[in-house]
């Protein structure tokens, strides 16, 4: 690891300045920070009085995690859920309303240049060495991870605590602490598709006209579209993670063609919509997130998260520390981050199909059967349940796509923010309107 060029300034000075900058907006702490403002040396405030706000998107910002954290840590962790645009908007325009930002990889490209977060000091994360190299080194199972799209390694490091650009190669300052991640693919109704599904291109098969859906979240929906269009031979891309204007035009043009031909039953906006579309049989093949597949199965409806030959669409989240955190609140935040990768969270989210950045700690929080099913790709020896206890798989079943290693070795492209994002979003709007 390279040494950071700039040593962090001693705690006291930074602390005081940042408080004066107007941080610590949390109502409950207003009184506490007033004391600090006048007398920086007074650290009488007890860590038990701290309340941390963890803000993120619905799929990873789960109230169960906050409850468990509050119980284990002794101070209070609150969750607030927002959607993708809401998340970037909150971080940029109301940064002090958040303490821990649970963001997607590509979202860091929006707020890091604006200096809204401080880096995570990797020395203060005790299990940093055990983090998956997927994030920390850009390799997985010995092979380099796909760089099409925003792979986690590319945004992982910065030069100093408050740097506003990314650094190529490891430093001691991480943009965020790696959190949950997964490899996404298409969801299908095996009882209704009536044939083998093996490629992203199958999403565009005329046989599924009026029975296919794609997600209406521009940043992610377009990735599914790109995978499908390339595989079906409609469009050729140079870099699927960074389209040129011409490629965007072609992509959206094709999507509109399919829309006008009545191919799409719906464009879904929210997780529950995708669950309902699938469970009701309105749609038989569509973009899907892993917990949505779990939710459909929990209703007793057959649903497969189908591995496809072109590989998965990878995504990942991390926990970023907001710039205003300091002193005892920063200490609490580091305690929370360390707790987050200490096992409980990993065990909990494994049951909705996600992986955690420090897999080995999750092992202690899963039964041998669950670990074998979710991580090792082994046949379940007993029923597998969702985080809330509903049965999702029978004994003898194998996870769709196989083991952790098998699935993540086949990531073809990452969720991303393209250079032509502005143009891409405007064009996506045309797809909506057409």
């Amino acid at each position: 690891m390279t040494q950071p060029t700039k040593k962090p300034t001693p705690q006291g000075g930074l602390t005081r300045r940042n408080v004066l900058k107007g941080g610590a907006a949390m109502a409950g702490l207003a009184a506490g920070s007033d004391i600090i403002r006048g007398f920086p040396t007074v650290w009488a405030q007890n860590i038990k009085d701290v309340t941390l706000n963890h803000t993120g998107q619905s799929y990873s910002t789960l109230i169960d995690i906050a409850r468990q954290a509050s119980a284990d840590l002794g101070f209070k962790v609150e969750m607030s859920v927002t959607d993708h645009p809401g998340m970037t908007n909150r971080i940029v325009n109301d940064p002090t309303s958040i303490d821990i930002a649970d963001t997607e990889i590509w979202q860091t490209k929006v707020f890091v240049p604006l200096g809204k977060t401080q880096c995570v000091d990797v020395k203060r994360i005790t299990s940093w060495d055990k983090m998956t190299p997927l994030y920390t080194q850009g390799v997985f199972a010995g092979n380099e991870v796909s760089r099409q799209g925003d792979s986690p390694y590319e945004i992982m490091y910065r030069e100093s605590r408050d740097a506003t650009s990314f650094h190529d190669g490891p430093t001691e300052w991480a943009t965020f602490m790696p959190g949950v991640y997964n490899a996404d693919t298409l969801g299908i109704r095996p009882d209704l598709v009536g044939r083998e599904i093996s490629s992203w291109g199958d999403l565009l098969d005329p046989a599924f006209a009026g029975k296919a859906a794609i997600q209406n979240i521009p940043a992610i929906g377009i990735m599914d579209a790109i995978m499908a269009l390339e595989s079906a031979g409609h469009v050729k891309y140079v870099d699927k993670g960074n389209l040129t204007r011409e490629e965007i035009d072609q992509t959206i043009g094709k999507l509109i063609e399919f829309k006008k031909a009545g191919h799409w039953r719906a464009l879904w906006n929210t997780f529950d919509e995708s669950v309902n579309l699938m469970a009701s049989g309105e749609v038989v093949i569509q973009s899907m997130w892993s917990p949505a597949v779990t939710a459909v199965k929990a209703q007793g409806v057959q649903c497969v998260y189908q591995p496809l030959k072109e590989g998965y669409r990878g995504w990942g989240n991390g926990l970023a520390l907001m710039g205003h955190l300091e002193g005892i609140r920063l200490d609490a935040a580091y305690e929370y981050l360390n707790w987050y990768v200490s096992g409980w969270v990993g065990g909990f989210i494994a049951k909705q199909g996600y992986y955690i950045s420090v897999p080995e700690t999750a092992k202690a929080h899963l039964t041998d059967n669950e670990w074998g099913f979710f991580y090792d790709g082994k046949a379940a020896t007993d029923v597998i349940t969702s985080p809330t206890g509903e049965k999702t798989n029978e004994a003898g079943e194998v996870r769709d796509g196989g083991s952790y290693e098998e699935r993540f070795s086949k990531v073809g492209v990452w969720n991303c923010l393209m250079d032509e994002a502005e143009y891409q979003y405007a064009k996506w709007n045309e797809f909506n309107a057409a």
Partner: protein
Amino acid sequence: MKKNTLLITYLQVAPLFLVLLLFVIVPLALVVAVSFFRYQVLVGLVPDFTFKNYVDILSNSTNWWLYFSTIKFTVIVLAITFVLGFWISYFLVFHVRNLLTAIGLFLVCTVPFWTSNIIRMISWRPVLGREGLINSALLKIGAVDQPLEWLLFSDFAVVVAYVHLFTLFMIVPIFNSMARIDPALLEAAYDGGASRWGVVWNVVLPLSKTGIALGAVFVVTLVMGDFFVISVMSGGLSGSATSGIFNDLQFLNYPRAAASAVILVIIVLMIAAAIFRLVDVRRELAQ
């Protein structure tokens, strides 16, 4: 003495003026100001004075299409809610003899509003879906052999939801106007030899104009400002002018979103002005 009354008048107007200043004029002025700012990708807004946002919007055929489709929905919904609102109010005011029953029935109209907007809208899905109530009924009685796809995730579904959500906004003002019509006037018209339709056309309709105009303003602003109903009920297959604003916000493009908002405000104001030109609400209310 005269000066004194003037002062008192100003003082009387002041609270309302302050409220409007604080909650209408200032925010609107900010939106207008931002609409001329420059957008820098991923950074947000940069103070500037440029017409680029307006040029972007007006030179893009998609936006024209979006406005066209929004206005199409507005006109359709306006027509349906007017017909429903007018006849429901007519029935309540002139056909139900007992005032208590009329008020009771009027309250029944508001029952759906005891639940949230979203629930009322989402509840159409199991009714209209491919495997929904209507389709299974039609299939059972043999009226169709394939489920009707256009019931859900279509313009039809959007209109159904709008009508369901917004008809009450038509009923209330029209009911209010009609309730102020002296029943003796109708008797006199009948006595003078007017037909049933003649009375409706020549007496009731003109005297309900204020209510119709106010109801129309409600419906127009609600439909033009919507992006959620349309996105949910069309399954994301249709957009509205407002959904363009929402999409812009997804990547922090406040300047263009503000410019879209300004254009939308201008269009809505123009429609409202046209409605109020047809009906002088102030005069009618003063009567």
